[in-house]
């Protein structure tokens, strides 16, 4: 399913990006952000989001598998 960034329109958000949206905004989130727009919205850096994604993957979170 094609999901685009609600802010910048970036197309085809990948599984990791969708996963981090759900993890940080709630599983029921309907509008998704690309990593750059999500970082800006949350007040962090893209690298910090990538670090979080890696940690969640290591924990075995199914949102990222």
């Amino acid at each position, binding site marked *: 399913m094609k999901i685009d960034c609600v802010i910048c329109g970036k197309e085809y958000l990948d599984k990791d990006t969708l996963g981090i949206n759900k*993890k*940080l*905004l*709630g*599983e029921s989130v309907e509008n998704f952000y690309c990593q750059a727009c999500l970082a800006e919205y*949350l*007040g*962090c850096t893209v690298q*910090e*989001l990538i670090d*979080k994604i890696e940690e969640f993957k290591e*924990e*075995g*979170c*199914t949102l990222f598998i």
Partner: protein
Amino acid sequence: MKNFIYADNAATTQLDAGAFEAMKPYLLNDYANASQPYAFARVSKKALQESREIIAECIGAEPEEIYFTSGGTESDNWAIKGSTFSNNGRRKIITSTIEHHAVLRTCEDVEKLGFSVRYLPVDSLGYIQEDVLSEAIGNNTRLVSIMFCNNEIGTIQDIASLAEIAHKNGAIFHTDAVQAVGHFPIDVKAVGTDMLSASAHKFNGPKGIGFLYIKNGTDIISYMSGGSQERNLRAGTENVASIVGMAHALKTNIQTLSANMEHLRCLEETLLDLLNENHIKFVRNGGSVIPGNISLSFAGYEGEAILHRLDLLGICVSTGSACDSKATQISHVLKAIQLDEKLARGTIRISFGKNNTIQEARCMAEALCRILK
């Protein structure tokens, strides 16, 4: 530069700078094994004795009633296993459903060896009712183990009343006071407990060290086999530097206890007032709680999401529910107080410490408002 706010002091605390300085000589110079008979060991022996006296004074005990351990978990294990295995014929333990896993898992181990364990329920605020204990206890009860205050919701139990019920029925009373020691006034004689567990890193001491208070005359056997340290009850070369650090940290906290408690209440008020002023809806869990421990539930939110978003803003808190690989797991404490699942899923624990500032409480409130609006 991003803020860094550490508000997870129920998990661990920052080592007191004075405690660190007090430890250094015993790591670098006076490193002798305190059990050795030569002169070089005298300084270590003296440090152990002084530390024992300081700690005893802080909780109203006698020095010979303080036994050094590796921390709260070992103290809990020893208290439970050491008293039940001393084999006086009684085969039942009573504890509560909201204990730390160091108590719950130990009780499960003892249960597997043929002892019976009764897990008392708590009310919605986390209190154990005296009549529930009175109904459960009997002449076969060896030990009652109830935590002084809960690590997740902070509720402080009426330990004196519960201990009295235990004693009336001939049982030993133990309290896991890991969250309370150094943060709340404790006099073991006034409370009437037979055993009390404590962990240094919860009161600005070093990690890997703690103590078990054992009232003189309490029937308990050794848990660690080996050397004759700690009056033949806890084997293993004494960790002198950490013991000195623990005593220093505890003494420092006790000297400023009233001021610390008042400061922590101010931090709580600041945070909660700002949330209310910003119309953030929340439920605060627990009854009369240990200062600084704030368990908040936000319906419709996920505690884990709040935790990670605060983390991205440089703020450390804890959560009452965590996502494993399959589903969100709600903590046994929140289940025990029968918190509505929607609230339980949206629960975080903020635990301020004495080093947190009013400004940090305000930043925390602002961050929560930003996340929850």
